[in-house]
């Protein structure tokens, strides 16, 4: 369309590759805390891929998804940390 498709696609693919690299920490985390950290990073990378895909398809409606995940993604992390604090 405007010639930007190549950059957007390559960046999104690069971020997807980094997500898979982060899964190494999910597989082999010695403690649950490591898995939580990796999951949190995966959440923020997911937001980035969603924004890139919305810009690539030129639809503003795809950005609502990224809004929700970026706003509410921290709840699960805080709840798990609350559980870990109470367990000790």
């Amino acid at each position: 369309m405007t010639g930007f498709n190549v950059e957007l696609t390559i960046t999104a693919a690069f971020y997807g590759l980094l997500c898979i690299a982060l899964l190494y920490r999910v597989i082999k985390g010695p403690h649950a805390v490591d898995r939580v950290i990796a999951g949190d990073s995966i959440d923020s990378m997911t937001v980035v891929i969603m924004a890139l895909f919305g810009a690539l398809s030129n639809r503003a409606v795809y950005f609502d998804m990224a809004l929700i995940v970026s706003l509410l993604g921290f709840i699960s992390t805080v709840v798990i940390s609350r559980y870990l604090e109470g367990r000790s």
Partner: protein
Amino acid sequence: MILLRIIIDALFLIGGFFALAGVVGVIRMPDSYCRMQASTNTATLGALGILAGTSLYGFFVLNSLAIGVKSIVIGLFILFSNPVASHAIARAAKRCGVYMLNKSGCDQYGRDNPQ
């Protein structure tokens, strides 16, 4: 037009580089707290660089106000919500006694709050 393209590509490159650095840090670092430090690297400049690029792309290339403003709002949300999660998980890790590499011999939290 060509200047705009160079700026947006530079923003994408910056974001990709810092995200790569953060992921390599998460994989390589020896203990949980240092992994947390590297993961903030991903969430701040790794995400904000791409979102700034997307916002410029929406404003000036696609001529769509909604895409630009929503990208900025997503960046603000990440800035507000990410440190809360990071702080909570760091405190929980220290409270439940996750191993900490103590190379400098300076652990004033463990000194003040013995288990």
